[in-house]
């Protein structure tokens, strides 16, 4: 067994006085793909926001040997966690080029950054054509690709993805998930994926957690959950 890469112990999160997460426990190993499933309002986005230090939390989150709970969002990003937020968080007023540069803002090796932009183009060729275009003019799928490309520029060890399939055409989603799988293998980026599209996420992931009203109700191998008829019917609805 490898040492735990990302762990949460007794993780609670609050919006003001309202508690939204209750004693979450999860583990993730390096190089893996873990997915967090659940209905609307189950606390999926809140979990990701807790990991990035954007919510008031209690309990402990450890990443790669350091306790990150309680740290500032900027500092967590600097440790190598790239968060692709809900709604993509693209800098719509800036160009694609500027968006990618911003993704690499924590690094200062100009040469390597230029190389990385080239590498990112290999995964997302469309961005090369859109390089000098204002990000807001890109289509939804292109913006999602840009958001992931920007996250890659951080050279992350872990990428947090908040519903990357949201609002995209099925074909684009297929393409996107294919790229995510490649990224995980070739770039050795661990992925922590929040999804409403359970069947798709379970195909990609190796481990899965199921959230219901802020609590983990089910955890296990993605494969087993996918094949378990009862779970599928009662929790995932497909």
């Amino acid at each position, binding site marked *: 067994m490898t040492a735990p890469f990302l762990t949460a112990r007794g993780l609670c999160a609050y919006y003001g006085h309202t508690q939204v997460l209750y004693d979450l426990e999860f583990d993730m190993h390096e190089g893996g793909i873990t997915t967090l499933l659940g209905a609307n309002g189950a606390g999926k986005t809140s979990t990701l926001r807790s990991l*990035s230090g*954007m919510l008031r939390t209690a309990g402990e989150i450890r990443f790669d040997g350091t306790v990150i709970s309680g740290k*500032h*969002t*900027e*500092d967590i*990003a*600097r440790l190598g966690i*790239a*968060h692709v*937020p809900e709604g993509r*968080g*693209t*800098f*719509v*007023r*800036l160009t694609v080029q*500027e968006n990618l*540069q*911003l*993704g690499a*803002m*924590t690094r200062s090796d100009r040469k390597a950054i230029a190389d990385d932009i080239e590498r990112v183009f290999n995964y997302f060729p469309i961005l090369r054509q859109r390089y000098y275009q*204002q990000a*807001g*003019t*890109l*289509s*939804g799928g292109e*913006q999602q690709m840009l958001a992931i490309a*920007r996250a890659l520029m*951080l050279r992350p060890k872990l990428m947090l993805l908040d519903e990357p399939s949201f*609002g995209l055409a099925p074909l684009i989603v297929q393409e996107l998930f294919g790229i995510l799988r490649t990224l995980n293998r070739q770039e050795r980026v661990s992925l922590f994926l929040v999804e409403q599209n359970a069947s798709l996420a379970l195909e990609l992931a190796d481990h899965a957690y199921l959230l219901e009203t802020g609590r983990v109700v089910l955890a296990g191998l993605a494969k087993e959950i996918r094949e378990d008829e009862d779970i599928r019917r009662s929790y995932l609805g497909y």
Partner: protein
Amino acid sequence: MELLLHQVLAGIATGAIYACMALAVVMIYQAIDHLNFAQGEMAMFSTFIAWQLLEWGFPYWAAFFVTIAVSFVAGVLIERTIFKPIHNAPILSHVVVFIALFVVINSLAGFIWEFTIKPFPSPFGTRSVLGSGLLSAHDAGMIGIVVLILLLLYGFFRYTRVGLAMRAAAANPESCRLVGIRVDWMLALGWGMAAAVGAVAGMLIAPIVFLEPNMMLSILLYGFAGAVVGGLTSPAGAVLGGFAVGIIENLAGTFIPYVGREMKLTIALALIIAVLMVRPSGLFGRKIVSRV
């Protein structure tokens, strides 16, 4: 024809003042995504600091640069102490604080230096360089400095990583934190730079309008007009907008009956409305398009 030329030249001279202020306005807008109503008063206060330094016997350029440095630090401090606690407050809270700052700084200047009008020296002298008294050496020097600051700002925002981070931090602070940018310091830096640009504007404007706590009242309005006409997202647009406001104001005052000198301020406001109706992002501003 000669009258027209004269009025255009005179317009350029006053336009330089507005361009100066418009540049400071755009600077803060780029940094914090709001318009700072206290910008003019901050510039006025900086100018008083320069005046005080000159009174104490500093040579002009020493006073000039010390004032810029002090203003920069003061801008950073204002952000860290007054605006940091209300970062997440709605825009109206910011507006109220801007207005409070306006009043406080205005009164403070009056309290320290009194409301009597003081002359402020020009580093360029006042001899005429063009059009028999229409464009003085000070006007020319002022235009030169405005263009210089413009080039510096343009280079900073376009070609440096800090400049890029600052633009991004203003537009989308949450995403900036996610890529590891220290947003708080970007905002503070923006305030510092805006205060510094404002200080330069104040020191260049003071020789023309004379130094007193209310010197910036109408100039800030013209500065806003210039910035809006040119586009709040474009430093170059703001400078051109400033000149345009100066020229249009002068021409309208001369050639349109009933406008005269009294109605000049109205021209600035009419310009703001006209431009906002036709081109909401200003003549040179980047249009913000977004698909979903």
